[in-house]
């Protein structure tokens, strides 16, 4: 009897390491584990470049100017009391919404024209119209800066022939806001154009033919066929553009540096001024964090609508 027990004990000891090895192999062999390891480099990259800075800015926002003391929500309450902050909120909203509306509108109209250009010519036009989007914005904005020069610019020179101007493109509040929006629209409209063009090409011609036979005119075709068929692309493009436009930095920084009198500052440029130029990094972090809730609300509304219609077509 005793022999048998010893024998069983030996057996158990002998089997257990083999089991461990087998289970490790099982874990490593699982599809989910393989998938995890394959995506690990990306996860690490996102952690380093997105999550760490995000949490670090959250931490920074709770410190005092010298970054020596924890002040909790002190920076936020300080911001709420400053008029400039609310002006920046208003300006960012006006800038982003106006620019996105015009980009979408111009992109939609031009996409229709390009869509109706036959064959090879269409490729040429598509290429040419994409140029503003492929030039680095810092470079193209410099060119715009020269065009907007109050004394020697091409714009004011041309307008002088019509007895107009000179217009203080970057010196007056209205014209400065107009100018930064104009440059942003010029830079961003090709993105809408290319997205809408792709969407237009995916609408079957027979839907338009059916609508023609049903009695629709061109406007009714756009309203009842094109727009509903493009709704998801429009929503996603708008959301993406809203985020990018809201966080715009380079155009305003190069054209106006936020002036005149902070009247063209956006979140990003003001955060830069407060945080880097005025050496109050916690307050700068605090300003930049304000973009998150505003964009999150927009994203929730837009994506909820996209999900609702997702399975329609």
């Amino acid at each position, binding site marked *: 009897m005793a022999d048998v027990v010893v024998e069983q004990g030996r057996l158990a000891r002998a089997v257990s390491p083999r089991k461990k090895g087998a289970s490790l192999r099982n874990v490593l062999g699982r599809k989910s584990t393989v998938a995890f390891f394959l995506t690990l480099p990306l996860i690490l990259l996102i952690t380093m470049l997105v999550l760490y800075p995000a949490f670090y800015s959250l931490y920074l926002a709770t410190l005092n100017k010298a970054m020596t003391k924890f002040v909790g929500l002190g920076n936020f309450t300080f911001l709420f009391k400053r008029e400039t902050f609310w002006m920046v909120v208003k300006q960012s909203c006006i800038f982003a919404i106006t620019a996105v509306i015009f980009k979408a509108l111009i992109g939609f109209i031009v996409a229709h024209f390009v869509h109706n250009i036959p064959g090879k010519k269409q490729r040429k036009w598509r290429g040419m119209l994409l140029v503003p989007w492929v030039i680095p914005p810092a470079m193209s904005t410099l060119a715009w800066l020269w065009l907007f020069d109050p004394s020697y610019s091409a714009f004011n020179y041309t307008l002088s022939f019509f007895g107009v101007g000179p217009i203080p493109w970057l010196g007056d509040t209205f014209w400065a806001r107009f100018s930064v929006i104009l440059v942003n629209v010029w830079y961003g409209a090709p993105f809408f154009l290319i997205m809408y063009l792709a969407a237009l090409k995916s609408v*079957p011609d*027979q*839907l338009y*033919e*059916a*609508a*023609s*036979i*049903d*009695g*629709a*005119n061109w406007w*009714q075709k756009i309203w*009842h*066929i094109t727009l*509903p*068929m493009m*709704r998801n692309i429009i929503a996603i493009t708008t959301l993406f553009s809203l985020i990018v436009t809201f966080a715009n930095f380079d155009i305003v920084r190069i054209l106006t540096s936020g002036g005149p009198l902070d009247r063209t500052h956006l979140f990003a440029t003001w955060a830069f001024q407060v945080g880097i130029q005025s050496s109050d990094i916690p307050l700068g972090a605090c300003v930049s964090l304000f973009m998150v809730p505003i964009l999150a609300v927009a994203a929730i509304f837009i994506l909820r609508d996209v999900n609702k*219609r997702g*399975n*329609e*077509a």
Partner: protein
Amino acid sequence: MADVALRKVVKRYDDVEAVRGIDLDIADHEFIVLVGPSGCGKSTTLRMIAGLEDISDGDIMIGGDVVNDVPPKDRDIAMVFQNYALYPHMTVAENMSFGLRLKHYPKAEIKARVTEAARLLDITDLIDRKPKQLSGGQRQRVAMGRAIVRNPKVFLFDEPLSNLDAKLRVQMRIEIKKVHQKVRTTTVYVTHDQVEAMTLADRVVVMNKGRIEQIGTPNELYHKPATRFVAGFIGSPAMNFIPCRLEDVGGTVQIRLTDRIAFPLPPARAARYNALPRSEKLLLGIRPEHLTESHAHLEPGVETFDTVLDVTEPMGMETLVYFGLEGTPICGRVDPNAGAKDGAPMRLAMDLNNMHLLNDETGVVL
């Protein structure tokens, strides 16, 4: 409802003539089917009637009015497309009522018409669904419903059953016929399927290479084809064409198929073919159902010959047999109990009372 007339209608794409001057009269209430192989110009013709393609030359008239320059929306027509072309973001009811809503019909009338069409097509339960939630057959019904609610002068169908499986196609074919019997709207239907054409049409228009080959009732086309193309296109399996010549032997006219096979022309046909020059290269056109197993008692005009079968295809109610006559592949239809086997010899009977003679060069049926 209205009649439709095409006068010397031409459609050119750059240098290519897709439709080459066709004339066609479609009577009020008539169901006309345009049939032909891919690229024959049938869909282009339909699209020109719809106004979706411009006409290069000629006139199209609907209800006596020339509509060459009238846009589709003002032609008072309705069209059913091959891939249904339902608006994916609209419900079935919205799809069906779209045309009426654009024309600002009263809501009550729109509802009444949609309800009536849905009842007619048996889609009342689907009225609130989106097209994505429907099967192929249901989508096709909705597309028909969209056409019916507008009560147009003419219905146009562009290969509406091509996307359906074989069983559903037969079912929908019957549905379309029933609907036409109820609404009696003038209908132009395009298909490449000759079975659809034969079963649906009052008259069939066979098209080939942009021209009309023949217009006639299904029976006329089947029994009296005008050209080799029509004879070969209508009927499945297709008509056999065997090279032959006529010869005079002892005062009778014979039709010689091979060195060892020659048959006297049946009396019913002899008078018709007697005058043909003997040197003319001819084709004997004979349908598979007129090539059957031999019987002990044969009708006059039915001749027998021996052959060796290459392949047999048992179809249940009949067996198709394939063999060659001096290199020409031939198909026959025999009784499933006739003992036809692959590679086996068999005596077959050819019913020359139903034969056709064609000019080998022109393809015209003589």
